């Protein structure tokens, strides 16, 4: 429960405000974030990660190459679960290799329970790369 909502209910319980006042204050706060994402933003839970690429090889319109990739986010979840099959020795090697490349990431922290938070954040993800010189456009988003 959000902190503001909790405070209002506590004030109501302590008798500092009336039920009507509490109702008005809660209404003023708006919908809770969990329901707000779908109701206010109109965005449902994303199911796919989309990658769209448009590139022109020689700068002329007739050499346009388009790439459209749609990856189910379920595959991302399955991929993270696959990391649980990596033997501990191999995990250490992976971590060492990552650190050598300057990536401070611990593969042991990649757990399915942490993934839902990541997927939730992907809902609002949009990456647009526009390179006018080579006439290349890349768009990554979730839908």
């Amino acid at each position, binding site marked *: 429960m959000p902190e503001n909502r909790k405070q209002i209910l506590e004030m109501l319980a302590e008798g500092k405000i009336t039920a009507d006042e509490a109702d008005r204050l809660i209404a003023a706060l708006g919908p809770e974030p969990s329901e707000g994402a779908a109701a206010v933003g109109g965005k449902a839970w994303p*199911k*796919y990660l989309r990658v769209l690429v448009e590139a022109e090889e020689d700068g002329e319109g*007739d*050499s*346009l*190459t*388009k*790439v*459209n*990739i*749609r*990856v*189910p986010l*379920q*595959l991302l*979840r*399955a*991929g993270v*679960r*696959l990391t*649980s*099959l990596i*033997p*501990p020795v191999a995990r250490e090697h992976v971590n060492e290799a990552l650190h050598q490349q300057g990536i401070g990431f611990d593969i042991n922290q990649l757990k399915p329970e942490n993934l839902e938070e990541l997927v939730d954040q992907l809902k609002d993800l949009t990456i647009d790369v526009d390179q006018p010189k080579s006439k290349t456009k890349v768009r990554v988003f979730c839908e």
Partner: protein
Amino acid sequence: MMPPLLVLLDIEKAGRRMRLWLPLFLVWLLLLPLVLVLLPFAILALAVIGLRPFHAIGVLFGAIAALKGTVIEITRPRAAVSIRIV
């Protein structure tokens, strides 16, 4: 959770179009007896390397099932390839 049943392959080159429906469900049916024969050995091997066998099999099956819905389309001026896993 169902594994993918079909792969739709669409290839277009120089005005000629080829559409292939690859029935993955037939592949699964053909593999099923082999999997049943190899399952005890797989469980044993997974246990020896320190993995929970049924968890590992579930995770692998989940990864295959999660491929459903994947789409890859590449379009060039005179050629196009489309792969859809359904």
